[in-house]
């Protein structure tokens, strides 16, 4: 356990040994528990089999874990130094995907690296946070409080968000905007500006509606009234609520979720894995997972507050909020609180890219914690 008020005034970067000691192992344990739950659920999703998902997921988590540890040992200043470059590279990759998507048929969201498929939008989630953190680290409160000072960071958000939206990946685009919004809020942008933005969004909504793809419109309409199309677009929400609700307080037991195993529940190994977990382990299991996630986010905030550098604080808060958005959007979706958007539950849903991106984020957060006493000048 780390001590919250332990302070040191050393401005020298910590040695490797100090770094290792400063990695919060209780935090790492929480991540492992979450990933372990994921593997167990994937084992169940395959009707009690390690293939095709559980073993794969375990290996991917191992890889993600390694990435996290490597990043944890990197000096936090490195992240700041290369923040813009990283952002720029991610942006270029997004544009490449966009152009390729236009040449090829339909939506393309990834670049094939041979051994894995790289989603530039996942990179952008991290890159945007780091870039904004660096930007606000350097700017003064006065400039933050002026509208003019917000134009550059706003463009930094809107450009990639627009590219992602046209992929089309509404869920990821919204995540970029929300996590950026959280950063804007954290650095002290006045509340009235958010009010104006919200008002503007409300006015623009009918116009934006026409820019949505038909399937996206359907998802929203179906969310508002799932019975509209019970066998088509509404099927996911209805079946998710049935599976989850029928789990009751204690669940139907491991491998015994009827709705999941009889395939009434769609996408049970990816977006709707939380539903399956809730069916088999009931409300107890579901709340347990929520609490693990709350603890992980709480740790991240604590790391942020302990950090002495503005960049470190902001990066940790941004990345933590990013993780929070994954959890919040996914669970709200399967509980029928928001429309179905393709956002997985991090570390539990099957999918390699998300594990890597989330674990990389945690690696940077750990690095912020490890380097909490490193003083970073104002550029």
């Amino acid at each position, binding site marked *: 356990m780390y001590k919250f008020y332990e302070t040191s005034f050393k401005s020298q970067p910590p040695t490797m040994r100090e770094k290792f000691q400063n990695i919060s192992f209780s935090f790492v344990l929480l991540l492992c528990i979450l990933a372990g739950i994921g593997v167990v659920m994937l084992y169940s999703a395959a009707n009690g089999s390690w293939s095709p998902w559980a073993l794969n997921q375990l290996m991917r988590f191992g890889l993600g874990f390694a990435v996290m540890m490597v990043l944890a040992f990197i000096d936090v200043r490195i992240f700041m130094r290369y923040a813009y470059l990283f952002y720029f590279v991610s942006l270029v990759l997004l544009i490449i995907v966009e152009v390729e998507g236009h040449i090829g048929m339909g939506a393309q969201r990834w670049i094939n690296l041979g051994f894995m498929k790289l989603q530039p939008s996942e990179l952008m989630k991290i890159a945007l946070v780091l870039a904004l953190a660096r930007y606000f680290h350097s700017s003064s409160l*006065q400039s933050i409080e002026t509208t003019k000072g917000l134009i550059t960071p706003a463009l930094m958000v809107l450009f990639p968000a627009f590219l992602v939206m046209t992929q089309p990946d509404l869920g990821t685009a919204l995540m970029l905007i929300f996590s950026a919004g959280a950063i804007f809020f954290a650095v002290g942008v006045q509340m009235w500006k958010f009010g104006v933005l919200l008002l503007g969004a409300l006015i623009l909504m009918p116009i934006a509606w026409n820019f949505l793809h038909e399937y996206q419109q359907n998802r929203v309409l179906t969310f508002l009234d799932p019975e509209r199309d019970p066998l088509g677009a509404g099927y996911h929400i209805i079946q998710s609520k049935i599976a989850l609700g029928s*789990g009751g307080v204690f669940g139907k037991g491991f491998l015994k979720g009827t709705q999941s195993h009889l395939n009434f529940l769609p996408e049970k190994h990816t977006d709707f894995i939380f539903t399956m977990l809730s069916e088999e382990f009931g409300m107890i299991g579901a709340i347990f997972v929520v609490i693990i996630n709350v603890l992980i986010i709480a740790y991240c905030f604590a790391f942020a507050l302990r950090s002495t550098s503005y960049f470190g604080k902001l990066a940790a808060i941004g990345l933590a909020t990013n993780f929070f958005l994954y959890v919040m959007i996914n669970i709200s979706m399967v509980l*029928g609180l928001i429309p179905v958007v393709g956002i997985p539950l991090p570390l539990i849903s099957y999918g390699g890219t998300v594990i890597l991106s989330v674990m990389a984020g945690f690696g940077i957060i750990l690095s912020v914690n490890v380097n909490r006493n490193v003083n970073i000048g104002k550029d």
Partner: protein
Amino acid sequence: MNRDNDKGKVLINRSLILGAVELFLLLCLIFRLYYLQVYQADKYKTLADENRISTRLLVPPRGVIYDRHGVMLATNRQNFQVMIVAEQTTNVQETLDALKKIMPITEAEEERVKKDLKKNRSFVPIKIKDNLSWEEVSKIQLNAPDLPGIIIDEGLSRYYPYGEKTAHVIGYVSSVSDTDVKDDPLLEVPGFKIGKAGIEKLYEKRLRGRGGNLKLEVNAIGRVMKEIERVDGIPGDRIDLSIDARLQTKAYELFGEESGAAIMLDVNSGEILAFVSVPAYDPNMLTQGLSTKEWNELNKNERKPLMNKAVAGQYSPGSTFKMVVALAALESGVITPQTRSFCAGRMFLGDHAFHCWKHIGHGYLDVVQALQHSCDIFFYETAQKLGINKIAEMARRFGLGQKIDIGLENEKEGLIPDTEWKWRRFGEPWQQGESLISGIGQGYILTTPIQLATMTARIANGGYEVVPTFTKKDKGSPLNFKKMPINSSYISLVKQGMYDVVNAPGGTALGSRFDFHGLKMAGKTGTTQVRRITMKERQTGIIKQEDLPWKYRNHALFVGYAPHDNPRYAVAVLVEHGRGGSAVAAPIGSKLLLEALKLDATSQPVE
């Protein structure tokens, strides 16, 4: 530097707010979980079961129909079907080709199978052919290794061992049509069949039984995973009919190439022992389903095999009506047993001539002799004195001109006219001449064979209002039929006339008499014209029946009972366009009665 401090403080404050908001939102999820998994859990548990449990109806075996001695008239036979399951074979076409080498499959059948295969999921068995023979089944089983995906399914289908002989009693079952009342979920089961005619229709509810339930666990695409619960249904009731299969068969066969109807009743209980309408259809074919061509052939046949002539055919009773006229006349005192009339072969009403069938005339006759010789002039005169209303009243007491209601569909009322009816129907007064021809059962009068059988039974049993029924009555069960208020001696007189018809020289059915250990029959013949004989034809010589086309020939009728002194059986026979009652109908009635007496003599009680 001061501002930098502020900037840091703002960040910390705002971060704490942000963290609190995130925490609050995550806690909202917990409340939502509580709402769905505790508050609404029961609702979703029900929905989940609806999802995964598919309830199927189990069709109960249909009740078996027996004759009075326990002979099966309608039963359920194993029906083997060959089916194909697409997912169990790598190549549907190859499997079908291999099957074609074993049994014939028409192109149309193959088309249908392929269409059904496309419509259904690959694990759903699709029927290729049903009603397989044993030979075909064993061939398929022998070649099973070459026939991947082929399965043999066993079902029950209705079978009528007596085929067309019992068709108009038993009826048949067939697929539920849109117009049928769907009062039972069983009717929604694909391939379910219900009674469409006869006893099958009359006792549909009892024969059907009650469906059972099979609860299956299915997955999202409908594949059955396991059986959860099975509640067997209740089989349909057995029905014991009054019919005697041997008499039924005999009656049908006696018709040979002729068409018509014959009914035999137990004169005391009213039980229907034989009931045929000839020609008939094969109910086994109707149950399997006819092709349009076969259906059209049945429909267009001029001998109307689909029509139940015993209840739906309306015919002039002709001379078989004379007993009713005689009884009415005796009862009302218009004639006495001693009254004699002179028959000169014809009589005049105004300037209109009425002819006796025997154009040289019968001379002096009393009522018994008039019946024996079937003299028309005697009954013209009697009817003239009686008036139509008294005749009609007596006819109705013997069951004519009204539905007997034995439960078969399309039963007709027939027609017993009176003066009031004429007014209602035509707005004209009754003519005396119409009374005259009514006296010999012609004119407006129409009766059905079942009515004639009822009439005969009521005469034979001495005036008890027996009602025909298909229900087998237990021996010794009380018979509560009312005795009609008719003087028994008059009935005896009429019966004497009927005895003489068969047994006295000059009787019209003398040729059909029999003496089975002293047991004889009594009866009455009838021949009715279906075309008018013109004056010109009468002068130039009446065309011989044999020279007329079938549909213009006379109808032949016979009613009778046996034994003459202690009647047990009554018959009514109608042979459509059979030319003459004496020549064609009486022999059928006679042989049927004799058969019944012989069976009585040899019968061992069958229990």
